[in-house]
């Protein structure tokens, strides 16, 4: 018998495929205009680009337990979390293309995606999203709701002060937060052993009197199981917990990373244990899905991604002057509105 419902397995599978295909497409799109000479500011998608191909299990394993009312905060490598949380894929992609139809009208970009409908946000400062998740959890608790909040961070981020302060606060106030640490072995080029005094961050739960779990080998099923308990615990009002998952970063830290810090054989070896392939084989072996269902899910996921990229390409750029809008919400409390900021004509 399946320990995880087939519908959940299918959702996880399709979502992982969607994420993978999204990231692989981004590899191509990001390279446009950057050949033969790589220039970070060129092409339809300029700026830094941190992709998560290989890290899908972290995102789907826990988001499978979340509803639309739960909150997710993510770091600089956010696409897999966003997709698993159900962020509007068209608007997200348009944002990454810097278009006016984007989530932030082109103002945020790939590291700063905000979808209040899906209750998702991310940011470019390591560990800074953890307290935001704590805040969402506090809001839930104060409003008597059983919503939970999940903060994703990398293993490198678990050494930042914001991590410690936020977990302590969440534990003291018994807030429904789960911090998911994606251990992809590196913070940019620095291996975990050179950044982290303990082999795994689950033990850091002891510093806050909360449970910690470590999921080995990028296993989506185990991530699902561990997350189930953590989310249930949070919803029950029993407070925060930590989950660390050993995961695989197939691509560079960012696109263009020379990857001098790892052996050429490392990534091919990781690919041998690809979590998507493993999940597919499991589902087929256990009869949770048929070959044709698998194909259908794959096609469906890809079609959605393709449509999102097409939407982004077809959308218009914002007008230059729009740069001056959205600094402040208009004031409507009897307080006089602020005079528009000084702009420049170029």
């Amino acid at each position, binding site marked *: 018998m399946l320990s995880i419902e087939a519908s959940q397995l299918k959702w996880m599978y399709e979502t992982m495929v969607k994420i993978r295909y999204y990231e692989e497409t981004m590899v191509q799109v990001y390279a446009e205009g950057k050949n033969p000479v790589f220039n970070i500011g060129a092409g339809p998608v300029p700026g830094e680009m941190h992709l998560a191909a290989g890290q899908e299990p972290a995102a789907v394993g826990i988001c499978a337990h979340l509803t639309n009312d739960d909150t997710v905060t993510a770091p600089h490598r956010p696409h897999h979390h966003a997709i698993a949380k159900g962020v509007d894929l068209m608007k997200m992609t348009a944002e990454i293309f810097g278009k006016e139809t984007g989530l932030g009208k082109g103002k945020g970009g790939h590291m700063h995606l*905000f979808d209040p409908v899906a209750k998702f946000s991310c940011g470019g400062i390591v560990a*800074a999203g953890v307290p935001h998740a704590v805040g969402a959890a506090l809001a839930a608790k104060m409003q008597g709701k059983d919503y939970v909040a999940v903060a994703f961070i990398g293993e490198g981020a678990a050494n930042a002060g914001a991590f410690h302060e936020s977990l302590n*606060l969440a534990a003291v106030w018994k807030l429904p937060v789960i911090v998911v640490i994606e251990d992809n072995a590196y913070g940019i080029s620095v291996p975990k052993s050179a950044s982290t005094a303990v082999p795994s961050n689950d033990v850091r739960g002891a510093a806050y009197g909360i449970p910690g779990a470590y999921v080995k080998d990028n296993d989506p099923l185990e991530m699902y199981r561990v997350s189930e308990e953590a989310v249930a615990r949070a919803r029950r009002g029993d407070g925060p917990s930590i989950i660390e998952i050993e995961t695989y970063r197939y691509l560079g830290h960012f696109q263009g990373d020379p990857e001098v810090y790892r052996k050429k054989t490392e990534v091919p070896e990781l690919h041998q244990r690809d979590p998507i392939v493993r999940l597919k084989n499991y589902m087929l072996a256990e009869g949770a899905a048929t070959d044709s269902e698998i194909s259908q899910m794959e096609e469906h996921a890809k079609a959605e991604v393709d449509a999102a990229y097409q939407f982004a390409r077809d959308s218009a750029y914002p007008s230059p002057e729009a740069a001056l809008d959205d600094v402040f919400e208009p004031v409507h409390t009897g307080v006089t509105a602020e005079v528009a900021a000084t702009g420049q004509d170029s």
Partner: protein
Amino acid sequence: MNTATKRMLTGSKALSEAIAQEMERDPRVFVMGEDVAGYGGIFGATEGLLNKFGPERVRDTPISETAFIGTAIGAAAEGLRPIAELMFVDFHGVCMDQIYNHMAKIHYMSGGNVKLPMVLMTAVGGGYDDAAQHSQTLYASFGHLPGMKVVAPSTPYDLKGMMTSAIREDNPVVFMFHKALQGLAWMDQIDESIGIVPEESYTVPLDKAKVVREGTDVTIVGVQMMTHAATRAADRLQAEGISAEVIDLRSIAPLDKDTILESVRKTHRLIVVDEDYLSYGMTAEVAAVVAEEALYELEAPIKRLAIPNVPIPYSSVLEKFVLPNADIIYDEVKRIISL
């Protein structure tokens, strides 16, 4: 004005009354920070709130400014309206990332889709020998960075009215109150820390400077303690027939240029006085605005008075030397008038 509006309150009581009234009015408003509950805030800004509203809405935090200010951001994004107290502005360095990269930028980065209706309240100012890490105002450190409104009221009336506005505002507001203007029993008792404050709620705009004394010969722009120093200087000058106009900036960002420019167009002379550091400070911004937009109106060079680019020293004799005061302003007006 009936007698009820002649009620006198200290700065801290005016502040805590504003917060209490808004908490009554709007259940989404809550307060958190170090020692804000039972202690009522080190500078009394939250006194009495715990008793009225209980520990759910008046929350003591661990000494974790990054965590609790970030928590306020996360809660504001969910529709609550937090007031977070950073005990001394001097501590901003441990949590500035949450303040300037997140609180101040999320609205913009989200294309206006995420609102952060929150107040970051903090104590500023020196003059009581609390030395280099507990005496700063840092007005410009906040005013320089876009996306937050930064206010620094100088009277109990404005403390209440601007706090009410700040809480109702849908944008993040950095609310700086000056310790010496709280009217605390354990500090120097200065007259300006007590003033008329109506009991009923009212708002004062967050973006308007105020001409607190009209004059024709020179404009003195100040904020908080330096506004009061300027007024005292103006009193002395008046006795000698010199008419100084004093502007209380109140708002650090956005800056109310119009009020400043209008005054300079009338007086043709400008002194800017600041309890913050001189370089890249408020005196620079105000001077620059005038040099850019009303240069031909000036009949004398602009004079800037501020802390002369040194950390704030501990010993009274040293601290007094670096803080501008009414005497220095008086001297500078006399000098500038004779140019």
